[in-house]
């Protein structure tokens, strides 16, 4: 009887959850990693299934006003040691610099428009940035279907490439399973599947993302390996000094 009561109360609690509250729960299970190091292999498939690979070393530092990240390319060989440094700002434009090793040059990138393709993939810079809840306005209504909470959110950034996103969240774990991205014409553009979650130092991290462009039939898979959290990185590891030394 007591179990039944708990179940009913839980169900009632879920039904009463707003989009914002779901987002809060999602952040709670994925935030707190402090910093991360990983190797990512990105495989690009064109509409005919022909593939091409990119390999990157990625580091990220959680921040109060935005994360800092460094991506160093390992492959293809012609861009080896090219590195991208990003300071995210939730309240203004991001800062972004790229290091071009052939020219020994650190170059600033205009980062207002984040809808551009990342390295020819189906991911945009926006997709790879932090997905924290205060970057979006959430619709109050939450739909529950097949143990999944379906939440609609609209990016606050007026330069976003998306008019809205539909987020599918597992009802038990509050881990994001799928996101559907709608373009500015409000047509379905892309679909991302978040796969192979694992717990590292009590924080849930996905093992891979598959992004499919519904309109062009191209897709990209990012496979994350050797990920470690709470490595003791600090702001000094995310500066132009280290950008040049990769």
């Amino acid at each position, binding site marked *: 009887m007591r179990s039944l009561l708990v179940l009913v109360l839980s169900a009632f609690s879920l039904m009463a959850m707003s989009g914002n509250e779901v987002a809060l729960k999602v952040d709670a299970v994925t935030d707190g990693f402090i910093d991360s190091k990983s190797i990512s292999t990105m495989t690009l498939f064109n509409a005919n299934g022909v593939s091409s690979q990119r390999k990157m070393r990625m580091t990220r530092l959680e921040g109060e006003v935005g994360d800092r990240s460094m991506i160093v390319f390992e492959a293809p060989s012609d861009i080896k040691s090219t590195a991208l440094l990003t300071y995210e700002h939730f309240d203004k434009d991001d800062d972004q610099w790229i290091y071009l090793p052939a*020219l020994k040059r650190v170059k600033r990138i*205009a980062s207002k428009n*984040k809808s551009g393709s990342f390295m*020819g993939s189906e991911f945009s810079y926006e997709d790879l940035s932090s997905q924290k809840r205060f970057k979006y306005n959430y619709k109050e209504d939450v739909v529950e279907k097949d143990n999944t909470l379906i939440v609609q959110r609209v990016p606050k950034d007026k330069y976003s490439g998306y008019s809205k996103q539909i987020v599918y969240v597992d009802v038990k774990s509050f881990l994001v399973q799928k996101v559907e991205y709608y373009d500015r014409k409000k047509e379905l553009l892309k679909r991302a599947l978040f796969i192979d979650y694992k717990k590292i130092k009590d924080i849930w991290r996905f093992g891979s993302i598959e992004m499919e462009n519904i309109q062009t039939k191209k897709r990209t898979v990012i496979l994350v390996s050797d990920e470690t959290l709470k490595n003791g990185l600090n702001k000094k590891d995310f500066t132009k000094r280290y950008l040049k030394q990769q």
Partner: protein
Amino acid sequence: MIKLILLLFPIFGFSLDFQGFIGTEYRIFDNENSIKRDSSKAIEANIELKHRQSEYSYATTADFLKDYSEDSRTYARINEFYFTKHFENSDFSLGRRVYFMGALEVLNPVDIVSRQNFGRDPLDDRYRIGSYMALYEHYGEDMQITLMGYATQRADEFGDSLSPYNVFGVELNKKIESQNSNNYPSVMLKVQGTLDIDYALDYAFGVSRGYDNQRTFTENLKQKQWLSTSAFTYNTLAYENTLYKLEARIADVDENSDANMDDYIYWGAGVEYTLAAVYESIDVGILTEYYNWIRLDNKYSSADSMMILMQNDVFLGLRVAINNTSSTEFVGGVIFDVDDTREQNYYLQAKGRIFDTLMLDIDFRHMIPSRDRVTMLSLIGEHTRATINIRYYF
């Protein structure tokens, strides 16, 4: 042999990262001066070795080019070879290395440390010759202080008498005539950082004392260099999708230099606007830059006599990144002289990856010189060049 040993010795002691390429280059020229070479073919290689530990690092870069049409263009060089000691908030480097300064795309008036490798390609400033230097860099929160002593006493090369870019008719004397000893060091102090106010600004200010970046040629085809004191700045302001750039250097040439050279200001300003995902994943960048060289005394040297290519010039360019699996990119533009020479320099480049490791790079250039004034371009004459470059990267 000594260079080879220097290059190889770390292999026995350290674990090394290495990268580089081997490639081929084929060029076709159409020259107004019919005695000049109409094609060339070459093979090239570049290898970079790096070793890093927490407190120190080592890097060396070897460059090789064998031109089957022009012996004087062939070279093998350890272009970089330096050690760096890393402290908590600073780095100290010693050795030979390429050092870049600047913000603009086509030309960098403040980039005075590592000289362009004119022998490799006078029309492409990606190729640089490493300078011997002692470099100290101190890093603060949002600011960096750089102190450098360096030497750049190397003669420029412009190919043999049949090279379209050798306007002298004979090979240049490889000796350089310096105001003081060839070993006289140049020094540079620079402060740079990022101002993070409403808009982000990357700034750099500095002063330098030593051999000037510009040179003249004496009657016996010796190259002449002189001492100057200069102040410089280069800045990039990011505002929404646009980058605004300003670069300037003012040089006070030594009065007793015997160079017959005025003090001068060389500056440039540019705007770079990026349109992301204009069609599917295609990004387009629009670039505009302006360059101006001003002599301050009006006594000796005009821009023409100093062979300054961009003394009052505008650059209009377009960069189209297809963002496909081959990373196909097109870059094109025109540089035109806005004063009465009306010289024009057209450029179009297409490049993309084949099989993930081969990079195909095709570029086309067309130069229309002045017909009334003696300038560097008028000495070359009307000139068209197409280059096909294939590189295997590892």
